[in-house]
């Protein structure tokens, strides 16, 4: 083989954003890195592909939500070709009668809300300040990398003491609650409640009234605070992957696709390398896996190399993904009733009320789908005209609460689901159905197969936990590290898990 006899300092398994980020970060620490991807393309859920010739869209994930600026700068992603076509997208909750609501991001937006809904605007000011205070309090805990929780908790208590006495009590009161109950108590405007609820639970199977969704919401807000709001990269999400891959290549890292790792080689209790499916052994003293902890430890390493007690502590298999994706090619911009053309390029939410979100979640648990699904829509070709021929557009629709094993099976239901999506959007944009040239639906099983990530990797499907600690990246086997889902609180498409794994590895090498 081409790499036979070559020496590598580290092998990264998995070419999704975390694997690429880990490879790039290790490369920057002057390690010779080999990245092995089982599929024939990189990127996991962050890829761009054609719907029709000349119509391109982000196949799966379609917004950069929380790519930390720290990582963008550290890996010099802009030098490697990452451009943002639109930054800090506003979020618009669509209203059937044209009274669309822009989720307030600043004072001007709140003032606009106060014009129509003074009570809700006042409640928003209180709610927003409250959430910001809580996020400021727990974000350091969420992203803390030290193994022990005590110092982080101590700092949290000090910060709470320093700010306001009531914050910590309020936080502890809120955390186990559901976002739905809080929204019901605070707001009246169904559109606002629906949009905030969808924001909190997008990507999970939990309904807005599920206990613990408050933590989900705060976690989301904290993640968003790492980046600079929602952005659309020029060239779709695949551009992020390409930039990361270029960053790896710039550090003389090598990337191989179509190289499935079948098992890890262990010698004397420590990692010695990997063996690929075709039987090639590649030797390296360091292996970083972006697969889940369970898959890495049981399928690649093998239970024979770890203690029963450690197997017991492995997290359960990732929950099945519940997000579907519809990519549509349009022959013109649909006319959303009452929506200014500036806001057309925004992140559009269809979640008319809290009840609609709750019903979607309930139906999903019953392996069914609402007749009018809730959804998140972007039209990336407004900001990035290169995605479609002039005058034409592509639309990207993320559908939460799509059961993985739908009643009757996806092949039988997917056409009806696609039609119900088009019908639902047509209620907001009457000319929409005529504008669709082509479209395809990626079901949750499709997304899982295409991205190679269990659960699909669109949004944090796993329940976030308050403190993860560095213990999640390390493993009991010396030389084996994890950078995949569950190894850092920042699940979503952040690349944080990859970077912090690399940082932990470098710190450990320095300590030796």
């Amino acid at each position: 083989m081409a790499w036979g006899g070559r020496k590598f300092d580290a092998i990264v398994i998995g070419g999704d954003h975390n694997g690429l980020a880990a490879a790039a970060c290790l490369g920057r620490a002057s390690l010779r890195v080999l990245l092995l991807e089982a599929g024939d393309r990189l990127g996991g859920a962050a890829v761009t592909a054609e719907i029709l010739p000349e119509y391109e869209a982000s196949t799966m994930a379609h917004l950069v939500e929380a790519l930390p600026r720290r990582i963008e700068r550290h890996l010099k992603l802009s030098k490697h070709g990452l451009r943002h076509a639109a930054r800090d997208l506003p979020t618009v909750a669509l209203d059937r009668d044209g009274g669309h609501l822009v989720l307030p991001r600043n004072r001007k937006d709140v003032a606009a809300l106060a014009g129509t809904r003074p009570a809700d605007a006042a409640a928003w000011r209180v709610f927003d300040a409250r959430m910001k205070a809580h996020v400021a309090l727990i974000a350091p805990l969420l992203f803390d990398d030290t193994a022990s929780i005590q110092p982080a908790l101590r700092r949290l208590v000090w910060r709470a003491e320093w700010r306001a006495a009531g914050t910590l009590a309020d936080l502890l009161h809120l955390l186990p609650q559901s976002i739905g109950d809080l929204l019901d108590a605070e707001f009246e405007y169904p559109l606002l409640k629906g949009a905030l609820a969808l924001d909190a639970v997008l990507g999970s199977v939990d309904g807005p009234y599920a206990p613990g969704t408050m933590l989900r919401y705060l976690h989301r807000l904290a993640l968003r605070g790492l980046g600079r709001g929602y952005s659309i990269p020029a060239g779709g999400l695949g551009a992020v992957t390409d930039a990361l891959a270029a960053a790896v290549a710039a550090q003389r890292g090598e990337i191989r696709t179509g190289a499935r790792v079948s098992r890890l080689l262990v010698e004397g209790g420590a990692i010695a390398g990997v063996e690929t499916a075709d039987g090639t052994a590649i030797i390296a003293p360091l292996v970083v896996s972006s697969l889940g902890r369970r898959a890495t430890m049981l399928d690649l390493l093998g239970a024979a190399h770890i203690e029963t007690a450690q197997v017991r502590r492995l997290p359960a298999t990732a929950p099945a993904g519940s997000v579907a994706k519809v990519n549509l090619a349009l022959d013109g911009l649909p006319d959303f009733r009452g929506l200014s053309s500036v806001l057309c390029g925004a992140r559009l939410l269809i979640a008319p009320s809290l009840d609609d979100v709750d019903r979607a979640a309930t139906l999903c648990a019953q392996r069914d789908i609402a007749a009018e699904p809730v959804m998140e829509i972007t039209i990336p070709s407004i900001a990035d005209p290169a995605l479609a021929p002039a005058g034409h557009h592509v639309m990207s629709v993320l559908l939460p609460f799509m059961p993985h094993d739908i009643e009757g099976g996806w092949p039988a239901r997917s056409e009806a689901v696609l039609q119900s999506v088009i019908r639902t959007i047509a209620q907001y944009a009457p000319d929409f159905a005529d504008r669709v040239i082509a479209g395809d639906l990626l079901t949750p099983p499709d997304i899982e197969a295409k991205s190679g990530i269990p659960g699909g990797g669109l949004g944090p499907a796993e329940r976030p936990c308050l403190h993860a600690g560095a213990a999640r990246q390390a493993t009991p086997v010396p030389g084996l590290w994890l950078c995949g889902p569950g190894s850092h609180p920042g699940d979503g498409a952040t690349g944080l898990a990859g970077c912090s794994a690399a940082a932990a590895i470098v710190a450990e090498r320095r300590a030796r």
Partner: protein
Amino acid sequence: MTPDTLPPPLGEQDAESPLRPEIDPQDERAAVDPSLFEPPAGAPPFERTVLTTSLHAAVAAESRVNRWTRWNGFTVAAWLTDLGDEYRALRGAATLADISPLIKYRIAGRDALAFLDRLVTGEVAPLAVDRAMHVLFCEEQGLVLGDGLLFRLGDEEYRLVTEETHLAWLMDSAIGFRVRVEDVGDTLAAMSLQGPLAAFHLSRAGLAGIERLQPMAGCWAALAGIPVYVSRTGMSGDLGYEIWVDPEEALYVWRHLMQAGAGFGLYPSGVGLRELARLEAGLPRAGRDYLGAFAAIDPVHARTPFELGAERQVALVKPHFNGRAALVRLAAAAPPRRLARLVVDGLEPARFVSVLADGRPVGIVTTTGFSPALGCNLALATLDTGALTARLTVDAEIRDELAVRRVVLPARLVDEPFWAPARRHAVPAPLTA
């Protein structure tokens, strides 16, 4: 109705045997047989019944004193006639006892060897088919969870026989291995034929050539036309065999053996004798002489293999097994405690309370007994390592009718088992006493 009382859904019932679903030998997923936790068909829910072994009818027919005790939930005979008579039969001729309450697991599948290699501290790979070995298994901290006898029945089939249940641990350990772990306690009866005439009785019962069976080996044979698995194993420290058989046919095998041996001193016996014989053989028992790591609430009462004197069963050369990292650390230092065999001279049975060195308590006594053959009190005790060289005494209680006398008796340590005749390893096994 509560879920417990709901009748099983239709289609799940097996037409042929509603109690025991047929076991698919190709199925390699670790699974618990749900019938283990279900009341027998027809029995009202929550009905409390005396749990008996499949040999109960035969044992009850032999009982002259109606002395019963419980063992792993089963009602078994403490002794059947007189402990002294049974003891003399064991050491002078042979005894037959029901040992069905032992916990038995069938471990089978492509990864059975890899699974066991990770599970136990010893080396399993050299174990040949139809051989048995004594194994210990530890948890992460190197504390012993239990011990047992591991039989290799086929290329990919093993049987683990333990004193206590370990199903949860075995199931968790099976994650990631293509192996099936089953509790076969209900589908396998066992009886133990021990004593210097054990081989004689088996050959008289029709197992010609059984004397050539190696110690810790087993073979398939037929007794009274019934297929049985005979292994040269046991807890008596003497020549002895254990017979593993289908529970439905166990009674016939028992009767056949008793009839064949009736005129030659074969005695039925109970668990009281098993305890005494085990003490004479110096074998510690889980739950009595040490607690499994998960059973010990205070970790001080859990033991490492080194504290149990089982260094030879810890193969630190194996690349990985449960508890290896901790055991490598522990092996470097002398264990703080050690299981020891104590002899206290004196012709009366006494109950030991504690072990003293120069008047200072240095350990606890876990099993005591009076050995008629040796004419002394024996004990298994856990002693502080520092006290092993000191002059030891024991605090003892001697009962005189209603009165209790407290005395301090001199004790000494013994390295070898109290009872270890050469015939237990002899091949061919002697056919005469």
